[in-house]
């Protein structure tokens, strides 16, 4: 059962009960009032009859000296018979005249003082009996008068009230339903929105205005939906990234495996010449080296993802000199010039990981630079902590690629990267190492001018340690 239906039914039931109770009380009261009016009219009729009859009887007895009243009363009563007014006259307990209904039972109107009134049902008709002592001698008079109109009036009124309650119910129903449907429209809109969102349309929002509870609920619900869609977005992004990573990794693994497998099979079974043999062997060798590099880098990445490290004070000057020393073959091969400038002395971290980070950066710089180029390794304080930088004046990174360059397997120029043996994992590893140190890695570059990679060891966490 819907909310509006419940509300409608309860309001209708409450109204009908209240209306009927009111109508009942009203009917009862009006009946009482009518009864009183009827009685007072009856009493005045009784008074009139009493006076006239007493007078006639007194005159009759004085002139005739006769006590046989019956004929006198009968002729007198005949006048009233037409008006449905019937008379009984008693002398003591003796009935001396009656044209009324005869019945057995208590006659309350025959007891007591001036007069008594009793309503009785005779043959399904309502009669008012009024009895009392007459002014004449000690006769008792009972006047009975048909009061059926009371009941007819009552029935008519009740009928009228029933009709009224039906009409009012119909009007009330229509008004209620209209109002309730109007009032519950926001609920239905909310419901529709919720269903849509539940079905997966996370970008949908509920359109319910107003400052009432519904508006508030809709507003809160929309906030919840925002949070949900934000989380869903994050999860989707993560899973897309993961899929991308796996696709790339698959590609990077499958390629050398395909080459090695294919060329070894070729050497085994084909009818090759010397030139083809050399090519096959060269490719096998090349791709085993590539697999070797890939497996090393992957191990490093996985290791970095899983580990927490102990941070020790590292002397920056010696860190830089170690890196340059380890990279000296590459540096000499391209006759590069390395300039070191240490304004900050210490940083907290893991010696080996930091070496690996700066070796990666220096290798990138060497690859990017032309023959005889220059690389700068600097460190300085920026007020909060140490910043270490690697700067070169090589080919730089296109602006559109800077945002994604730290993603695993992201390469700016695939064919060129392959020539240089790049897999697109170097910067991803650097980023991971920086994160382990609670440091941030930022890249600033202009194509064909320079690339500056800065590692900021300035987060509160890093400073805490």
């Amino acid at each position, binding site marked *: 059962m819907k909310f509006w239906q419940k509300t409608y039914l309860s309001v209708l039931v409450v109204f009908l009960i209240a209306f009927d109770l009111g109508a009942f009380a009203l009917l009862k009261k009006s009946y009482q009032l009518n009864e009183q009016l009827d009685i007072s009219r009856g009493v005045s009729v009784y008074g009139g009859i009493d006076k006239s009859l007493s007078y006639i009887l007194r005159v009759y007895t004085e002139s005739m000296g006769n006590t046989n009243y019956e004929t006198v009363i009968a002729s007198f009563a005949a006048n009233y018979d037409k008006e449905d007014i019937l008379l009984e006259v008693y002398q003591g307990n003796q009935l001396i005249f009656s044209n009324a209904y005869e019945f057995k039972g208590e006659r309350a109107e025959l007891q007591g003082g001036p007069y008594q009134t009793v309503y009785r049902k005779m043959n399904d008709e309502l009669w008012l009996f009024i009895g009392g002592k007459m002014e004449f001698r000690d006769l008792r008079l009972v006047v009975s008068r048909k009061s059926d109109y009371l009941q007819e009036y009552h029935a008519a009124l009740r009928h009228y009230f029933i009709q009224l309650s039906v009409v009012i119910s119909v009007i009330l129903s229509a008004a209620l339903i209209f109002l309730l449907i109007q009032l519950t429209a926001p609920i239905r809109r909310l419901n529709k929105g919720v269903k849509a969102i539940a079905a997966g349309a996370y970008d949908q929002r509920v359109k319910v205005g107003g400052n009432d509870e519904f508006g508030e609920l809709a507003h809160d619900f929309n906030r919840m939906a925002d949070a949900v869609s934000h989380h869903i977005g994050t999860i989707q992004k993560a899973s897309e990234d993961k899929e991308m990573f796996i696709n790339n990794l698959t590609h990077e693994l499958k390629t050398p495996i395909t080459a090695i*497998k294919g060329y070894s099979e070729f050497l085994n*079974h084909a*009818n090759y010449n010397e030139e*083809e043999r050399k090519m096959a062997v060269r490719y096998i060798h090349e791709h085993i080296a590539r697999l070797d590099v890939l497996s090393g880098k992957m191990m490093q990445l996985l290791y970095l993802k899983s580990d927490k490290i102990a941070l020790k004070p590292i002397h920056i000057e010696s860190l830089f000199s170690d890196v340059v020393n380890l990279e000296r073959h590459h540096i000499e091969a391209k006759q590069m010039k390395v300039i070191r400038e240490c304004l900050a002395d210490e940083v907290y971290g893991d010696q080996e990981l930091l070496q690996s980070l700066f070796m990666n950066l220096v290798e990138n710089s060497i690859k990017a630079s032309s023959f005889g180029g220059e690389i700068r390794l600097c460190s300085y304080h920026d007020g909060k902590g140490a910043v270490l930088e690697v700067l070169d004046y090589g080919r730089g990174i296109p602006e559109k690629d800077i945002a994604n360059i730290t993603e695993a397997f992201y390469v700016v120029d695939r064919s060129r990267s392959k020539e240089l043996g790049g897999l697109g994992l170097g910067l991803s590893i650097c980023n991971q190492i920086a994160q382990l140190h609670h440091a941030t890695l930022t890249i600033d570059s202009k194509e064909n001018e320079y690339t500056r990679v800065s590692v900021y060891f300035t987060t509160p966490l890093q400073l805490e340690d």
Partner: protein
Amino acid sequence: MAKILIVDDEKAINDLVAVNLKMVGHEYVQLYSADHILQTLHETHIDLVILDVMLPGRDGFDLMQDIVKRGVPVIFLTARNSVSDKVYGLEIGAEDYIVKPFEAVELIARIHVVLRRNHKAANEFRLDDTVVDLEKHTVTVHGQEVEITNKEFQLLDLLVQNKNIALSREKIIEQTWGFDFYGETRTVDVHIQKLRKKLNWENRIKTVYKYGYRLEV
């Protein structure tokens, strides 16, 4: 034989496909990116494209429509081995979908199937004085027709398709008799002996020690 366009940005893989095609006598054109595919299709008559999916710039799935429009059959050769990729590749009109790493024999067999289906396979093979009609399933030596059984012809077809490449006895059984053949590898030797005699190819069908046979051209 057919002229086949190889598109793969990995030089090693590209050369690997090329060297295998060369062995069996196909001609080929090598491309390392998506850039000049349409131009190449326009300038040269290409019978078949072997296409990598992950190419720099546009991916192979993207290129598909333009190639199919020209009525050139395509075989995908890719590291992407998910079923959904396979289904998608075939849905958009590829003739076949081969996952890396691949076996040379497999690649050549599947190329051959596609060429045949598109009526681009050669229907005649000549070597010395022997002519094999691959369509009519007949063989003539010095112009004389030679009696040849159905199985022998299947074996001959397999050798011709993989000329210069050694076929293991197991491979020969699988391709000629099917997976459910429980006979011995001796059966292969017997059939090879018969072919050598009938076609006068004693020096052409070489035994590869402890492995199988190779038709040398």
